[in-house]
């Protein structure tokens, strides 16, 4: 479908970007320290941070991807919403407060808080980089996809534009500007999504969705037919059919799921769907990839606009009676009307016809009851592999959220564990509300005659367009800002991993506070440039695979380490490092061996894939846990410090009342007294012991609180 660049979209977009850059400039002047750069000074209000969480989390995959998937497959797309939200329960109940308590700038700090281990510093920083980069690619590709239709610019211009703006945002003020950009974007996204949903509900459903009379819907033609021997007899004599229609690739072999016929009228050829049940031929939409690389849309170049928008209700029943239009509906009435009605969806059939590769989208009537239950996309309830694949995906979504580095670093921008907790709750409220909206946005796009079948990612912006160009412009600018914001967060996370975890800690390069900020900025520019390059290189790759990768890798590499560190006292640094490595290698490895990869990336028969399911979490997460336990058990230290040594050390540190003082003492006294490492070991011992005492104390007091 060709898109006209809208001057409103450009104006609103330019205003938005200008405002974002002003935020970056404003905070740049205030950000002088490493704490300011990597953790926004640690003094962001929890409510702001909560909405910024929503901004971080509701990436292009959520906003564009989920709405598009619901518009194409119904309830199965909504399952992503539920999995993505449920992941926040892990974040709130298990990860939020300890993360804040243990870390300083990065997730690696928290993992390493008990150990000071080179192994953890390196592997955790590596996993942050791997996950961030996997997550960055789809965002950058998404930027290119968005820019093309909205502003009429080519893909690589979009990628470079996003990359450049993000580098400015991040390299000037780091986490402070990123946080306020995310806050703004998260808030606007939710407000305007709600606006679109209200508009969808007040317009209601229609069998002829004409955007409230603004834009006439395509009039579908059907031709009754009969087959006598090898002759296809058509009711409408103005169409002719080739004699060899039954031997063409479009008609298909004995096991073809859907059969097609080419009809000619007035010298123009079109592909028709042979609806054998109803005995009619129905219009299809086709994309033909020619051997020279050009594409034809319904037989003409894209600019001619013959590839019309689709999506409508075939039948609407209100109180058992069929109606053409419902008018204003409340949310449950809207869902119930779809549930009791019939919707036309448009599956795609891929056919190779000589040198041409065709994608044929044909109409299929599906009852609302089937559409609003699982099974259109996921192969559930039929085969064991299908069921396991689905369970594995839902496991990755559940466990991946609380292990995404760009989400975890947001715990260091607030002043206290209680604030970390409260901001998570604000995030759950905001994100949960948005995900409820996605069902209405997706179903709205499915039934409003706005779907561009070549790109389901555009479902939500195109739905907004059916309510007027201004709403479209705003939604598009927000969608673009979604990419900007998420990319900024990811780049801050990656730059922290490089500057703080690797350079400063792992390679032990002593940097001044200013030096750290400079290293962070340089790392941000470097990661930004890599992201731009990947975004251009992977143009056209299905982005949802990559988001799936990021979640599965995060769940496998990071989550076992976080959880075991918090809840299993025997966890050792070698156990953590080993589980991170096994998590990365097993999850990435299994994805590379999966049927989907064989089909999409290597263009091989998916049945050849050695690993039968697409989502690796169900194997790689337990494997990573197991590795951690086994390696930890084999690397237990006897007592780290003998009783005598501890007593001697305690005497030395006794005059200092707080750990902060002790740390200062360690820094200043180590030359003549203990070595720095020894004194730190002592301090850590004491900390652990103190924590245990406090735990016992808390346990002994706990019953009082439940009264």
């Amino acid at each position, binding site marked *: 479908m060709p898109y006209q660049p809208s001057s409103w979209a450009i104006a609103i977009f330019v205003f938005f970007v200008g405002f974002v850059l002003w935020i970056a400039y404003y905070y740049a002047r205030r950000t002088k320290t490493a704490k300011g750069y990597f953790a926004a000074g640690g003094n962001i209000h929890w409510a702001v941070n909560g909405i910024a969480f929503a901004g971080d989390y509701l990436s292009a995959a959520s906003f564009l991807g989920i709405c598009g998937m619901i518009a194409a497959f119904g309830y199965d797309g909504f399952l992503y919403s539920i999995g993505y939200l449920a992941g926040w329960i892990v974040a709130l109940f298990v990860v939020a407060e300890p993360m804040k308590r243990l870390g300083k700038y990065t997730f690696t700090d928290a993992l390493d808080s008990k150990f000071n281990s080179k192994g953890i510093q390196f592997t955790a920083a590596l996993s942050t980089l791997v996950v961030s980069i996997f997550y960055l690619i789809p965002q950058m590709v998404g930027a290119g996809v968005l820019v093309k239709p909205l502003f009429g610019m080519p893909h690589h211009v979009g990628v470079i534009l996003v990359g450049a703006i993000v580098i400015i945002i991040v390299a000037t003020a780091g986490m402070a500007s990123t946080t306020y950009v995310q806050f703004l974007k998260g808030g606007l996204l939710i407000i305007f999504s709600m606006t679109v949903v209200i508009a969808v509900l007040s317009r209601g459903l229609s069998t002829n969705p004409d955007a409230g009379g603004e834009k006439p819907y395509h009039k579908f033609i059907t031709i009754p037919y009969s087959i006598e021997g090898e002759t296809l007899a058509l009711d409408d004599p103005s169409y002719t059919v080739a004699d060899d229609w039954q031997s063409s690739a479009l008609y298909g072999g004995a096991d073809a799921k859907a059969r097609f016929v080419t009809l000619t009228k007035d010298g123009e050829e079109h592909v028709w769907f042979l609806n054998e049940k109803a005995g009619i031929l129905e219009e299809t939409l086709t994309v033909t990839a020619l051997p020279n690389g050009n594409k034809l849309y319904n037989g003409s170049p894209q600019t001619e606009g013959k590839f019309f928008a689709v999506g409508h209700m075939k039948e609407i029943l209100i109180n058992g009676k069929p109606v053409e239009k419902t008018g204003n509906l409340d949310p449950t009435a809207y869902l119930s009307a779809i549930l009791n009605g019939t919707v036309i969806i448009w599956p795609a059939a891929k056919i190779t016809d000589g040198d041409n590769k065709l994608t044929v989208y044909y109409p299929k009537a599906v009852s609302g009851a089937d559409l609003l239950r699982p099974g259109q996309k996921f192969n559930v309830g039929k085969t064991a592999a299908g069921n396991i694949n689905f369970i594995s995906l839902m496991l990755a979504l559940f466990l991946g959220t609380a292990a995404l580095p760009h989400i975890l670093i947001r715990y260091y921008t607030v002043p206290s564990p209680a604030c970390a*907790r*409260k901001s998570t709750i604000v995030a759950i409220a905001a994100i949960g509300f948005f995900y409820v909206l996605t069902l209405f946005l997706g179903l709205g796009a499915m039934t409003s005659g706005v779907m561009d079948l070549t790109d389901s990612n555009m479902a939500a912006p195109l739905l907004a367009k059916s309510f007027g160009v201004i709403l479209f412009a705003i939604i598009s600018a927000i969608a673009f800002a979604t990419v900007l914001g998420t990319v900024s967060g990811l780049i801050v996370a990656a730059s922290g991993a490089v500057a703080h975890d690797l350079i400063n800690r792992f390679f032990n390069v002593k940097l001044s506070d200013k030096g750290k900020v400079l290293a962070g900025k340089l790392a941000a520019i470097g990661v930004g440039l890599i992201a731009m390059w990947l975004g251009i290189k992977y143009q056209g790759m299905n982005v949802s695979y990559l988001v799936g990768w990021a979640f599965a890798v995060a769940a496998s590499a990071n989550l076992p380490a976080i959880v075991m560190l918090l809840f299993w006292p025997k966890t050792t640094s070698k156990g953590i490092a080993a589980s991170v490595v096994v998590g990365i290698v097993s999850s990435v490895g299994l994805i590379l061996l999966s049927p989907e990869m064989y089909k999409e990336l290597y263009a091989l028969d998916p049945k050849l894939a050695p690993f039968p399911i697409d989502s690796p979490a169900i194997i790689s997460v337990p494997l990573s846990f197991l590795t951690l336990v086994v390696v930890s058990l084999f690397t237990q230290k006897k007592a780290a410090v003998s009783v005598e040594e501890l007593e001697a050390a305690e005497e030395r540190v006794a005059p200092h009342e707080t750990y902060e003082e002790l740390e200062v003492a360690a820094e200043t006294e180590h030359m003549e007294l203990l070595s720095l490492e020894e004194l730190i070991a002592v301090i850590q011992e004491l900390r652990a012991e103190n924590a245990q005492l406090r735990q016992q104390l808390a346990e002994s007091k706990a019953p009082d609180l439940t009264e």
Partner: protein
Amino acid sequence: MDHGPSTHWGEDLASGYKTRLGLWMFLAYCIVYAGFVVLNSVSPQIMAMAVGRLNLAIVYGFGLIVLALVMALVYNTLTSRAEERYAAMFKGGNADEEGDE
């Protein structure tokens, strides 16, 4: 040293209680979520069952989202109360209430 948090908020005496409460609530949600995932995969037909004007798939799905928020609010109320009580119990130890309501 680079260890330790980026801000100091005093001793968090309620952390043991909060951790245990969090684990129990996490387990409770896990069971409800696992039930949802298993039902969806093993028997999508059950999810098509009518519940009022809607079906089980939608009601259970929305229910999971609402349940997450309700449990989060309950958790916050209980933990905030615990923090206050511990803070009162150990005068001088300032519980983590900076930047709070």
